[in-house]
């Protein structure tokens, strides 16, 4: 049994389990599924700076912080107890394209030559962590949600604005992958 759990889980298992998070949150506490609001609650809790957007009772929304705390803990448990010893299987075409761009480490879930701790104070770290992270936080709040709030919760509830947002996420990702990343890899080479 543990052997099966240790293997990478197929998309239909993950899809069903993530989909079930929607009714689970609704039924155990009348909560709408969405992760990016946690970033806003952290702003509201730590540095509201009298900005109206952060002036609310964040303690009332604290469930969301428990939820993301759980996600972090879940990541720890999965990696420590259930991790797959084999290297990740990536599509050959993607591996070839990324190698051509200059990615060398294909052993783990993340390339250590980009996201390793020793990259934090390099140009790579500045682009992939600082700029990338900033766009994730700024963009999700500007869009009013992320993959969970818009793509999963919003589309499950048949909301047209969520479809528009999801299409925009994908378009941004394609532009980033095909146009921006080649420039970035040239810059850091």
């Amino acid at each position, binding site marked *: 049994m543990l052997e099966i759990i240790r293997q990478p889980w197929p998309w239909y*298992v993950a899809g069903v389990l993530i989909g079930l998070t929607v009714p689970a949150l*609704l039924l155990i506490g009348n909560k*709408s599924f969405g992760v990016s609001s946690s970033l806003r609650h952290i702003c509201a809790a730590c540095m509201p700076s009298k900005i109206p957007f952060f002036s609310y009772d*964040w303690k009332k929304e604290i469930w969301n912080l428990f939820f993301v705390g759980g996600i972090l*803990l879940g990541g720890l448990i999965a990696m420590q107890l259930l991790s797959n010893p084999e290297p990740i299987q990536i599509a050959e075409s993607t591996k070839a394209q990324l190698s051509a761009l200059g990615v060398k480490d294909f052993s783990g879930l993340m390339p250590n030559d980009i996201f390793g701790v020793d990259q934090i104070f390099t140009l790579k770290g500045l682009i992939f962590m600082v700029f990338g992270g900033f766009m994730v936080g700024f963009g999700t709040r500007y869009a009013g949600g992320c993959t969970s709030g818009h793509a*999963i919760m919003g589309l499950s509830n048949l909301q047209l604005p969520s479809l528009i947002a999801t299409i925009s*996420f994908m378009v941004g990702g394609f532009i980033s992958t095909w146009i921006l990343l080649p420039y970035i890899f040239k810059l850091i080479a």
Partner: protein
Amino acid sequence: MAEVEEFVIEHPMECEAPNDQIKKERLFSNLKYLVLGVLFGIVFVKAEIISWFRIQEMFRLAAFHMYGVIGTAIVVGAISIFLIKKFNIKTIEGEKVAFHPKTFNKGQIFGGLIFGLGWAITGACPGPLFAQIGSGFLAVIITLLSAIAGTWVYGKFRDKLPH
């Protein structure tokens, strides 16, 4: 169906994941969201959704994996919401489940594009960011802090941005 229960709950403006429970929750009872988060985080890692490589495969149209995950999640979510509405299923506290219709604004396009750019670079949306840190990629703490800063900057300049 006559709706007798009409409550006004104060939310932070435009929160996509509001707390709609009328009954007050003690701090301790929030542990159930932590447990749900743990399960969610395990799925993230075991299905390799937190992997920068899987996100690259998705945007290079080289694998069906991520499309399958997100697509299945939407179908399961949609069926669940349909059933909750159809049979008026109540929460464990016996409350009516609240849904929030979203209204369109241009932020969904501009913000969506910006998030998409960042998604392909970091290989993470906000949920997987937390799971990446938990699974030992400690440098992602910088990504998370920067994402929090991005959220703050949005809040600060919100009035000046086109919506």
